[in-house]
């Protein structure tokens, strides 16, 4: 999409989000149970600074940043940082809104045939607006949360029941109108212990009695490590992420494993634009920012010559890691230009310093030749 068109839609998007009360992006309650402060009700641009919680949570992460496959890291909760209003705004801006991509034809059940209609300019404008509002729903980001804590509750010990059954008895409550997460599922073991069902048992049993479309009982073979690698090498990142979203709960360790492996693969091959204007772009950016791996991403943005995206990324980094060195420096330079902010980040916090600095230099040369270093908005 041409840069000017992209800017126009970005502006449209932010206007919609900030000012619209009628066409608010309705986020489904169960999915966003932890994202209680994303209501889009900020009618003004005031930044809500989450002091104690945000800083405390993210300070911890500073010492612990490391490879994504370390299971200990999954125990922290990125959810708090992800649900920050400022973070959400930046992620939404970075995702963009390419209507052609969002409404791309997908060969799936229920996919309709495109309609062709003859309209006036006014009618076309209305249709575009309503399509943009609807597209916001399609761009709802699956939250990035920490892995769920295992369920480990024993309700009763009855060793005198030993020998009664050689198999487990799984009890599920099928009362009406109970949210899936609140359904009681208990297991009576052969040794007589009555305990709450583990997360894996819960997922399987709920899928049997309350099947959700797009989910399989048990792990689909696609998500096994070897098969996943094959899919990734074929470049099917969006498909994998979409399927993971429908198969798993977002705090399932399996979901985290699959999504993080996909993001790492994208990082390795530099194919960030594949996810642009999809609902996975935001979570991907957030993942890299949270685990301090934004260098390649920053370089990609600079190579595209989009200064606003690069600046957004660095700003996001400063919000998620407010005690990092470049954040402190930038806080002390209130009139810094975008390039100065990015340069500060490159000097102080980039892990691949030379790569980023080289990208900045290349960008400056390009801009000098085109005659503009101003932030294009």
């Amino acid at each position, binding site marked *: 999409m041409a840069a000017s068109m992209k800017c126009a839609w970005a502006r449209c998007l932010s206007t919609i989000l900030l000012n619209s009360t009628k066409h608010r992006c309705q986020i489904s309650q169960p999915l966003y149970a932890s994202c209680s402060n994303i209501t889009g009700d900020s009618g003004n641009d005031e930044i809500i600074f989450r002091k104690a919680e945000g800083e405390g949570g993210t300070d911890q992460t500073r010492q612990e940043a490391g490879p994504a496959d370390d299971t200990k890291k999954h125990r922290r909760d990125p959810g708090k940082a992800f649900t920050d209003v400022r973070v959400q705004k930046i992620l939404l801006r970075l995702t963009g809104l390419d209507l052609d991509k969002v409404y791309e034809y997908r060969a799936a059940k229920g996919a309709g045939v495109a309609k062709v209609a003859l309209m006036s300019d006014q009618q076309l404008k209305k249709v575009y607006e309503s399509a943009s509002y609807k597209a916001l729903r399609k761009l709802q980001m699956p939250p990035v949360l920490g892995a769920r804590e295992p369920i480990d509750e024993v*309700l*009763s010990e*009855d060793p*005198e*029941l*030993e*020998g*009664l*059954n*050689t*198999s*487990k*008895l*799984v*009890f*599920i*409550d*099928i*009362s*009406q109108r109970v949210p899936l997460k609140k359904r*009681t599922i*208990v*297991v*009576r073991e052969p040794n*007589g212990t*009555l305990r709450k069902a583990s997360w894996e048992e819960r997922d*399987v*049993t709920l899928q*049997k*009695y309350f099947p959700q479309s797009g989910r399989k009982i048990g792990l689909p073979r696609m998500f096994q490590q070897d098969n996943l690698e094959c899919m990734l090498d074929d470049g099917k990142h969006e498909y994998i992420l979409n399927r993971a979203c429908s198969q798993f709960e977002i705090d399932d360790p399996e979901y985290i494993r699959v999504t993080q492996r996909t993001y790492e693969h994208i990082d390795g091959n530099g194919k960030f634009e594949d996810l642009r204007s999809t609902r996975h772009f935001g979570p991907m950016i957030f993942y890299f920012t949270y685990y301090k791996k934004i260098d390649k991403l920053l370089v990609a943005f600079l190579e595209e010559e989009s200064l606003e995206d690069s600046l957004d990324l660095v700003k996001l980094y400063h919000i998620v890691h407010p005690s990092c060195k470049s954040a402190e420096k930038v806080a002390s330079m209130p009139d810094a230009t975008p390039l100065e902010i990015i340069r500060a980040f490159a000097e102080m916090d980039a892990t691949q310093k030379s790569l980023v600095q080289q990208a900045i230099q290349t960008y400056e040369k390009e801009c000098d030749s085109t005659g503009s270093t101003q932030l294009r908005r």
Partner: protein
Amino acid sequence: MALAIRFALFGCTNRPFFHIVVMEKRRAQRSGKIKEMIGSYDPMPNQDNQKLVAVDFQKLQQWLGFGAVPTKHVAELLGLGGFYPIHPMSYIKAKRKRTLMEKQVADMQAKEETQETAAIQVNEDTQPDSTEDASQ
């Protein structure tokens, strides 16, 4: 009217499956006179060695309030699930099974021992006595 919460056996030959239903206690289960189905119980363990029991506990409590009485086996199952206290028959059955198992294990051991001693006897009979050889 003896309104009961009971099992109704469905499924087919060699494959039982119970619906937990509210109906009159003495009626035939497939007569079509079920008042309401409030759950299911699959007595055959699945791949994960689980027997699945589903109960609509809200409805169950409503019908209990209305005067329905669970049968012995339903009460046992609900006791195992934690809705009721554990039925005394569960303890008795478990004890009987344990005793049976222990008896079977003891019998097996006794059988093995007799087999071993019989084998040793056979060996001794076939081999010449070493002391007799030495003395000769």
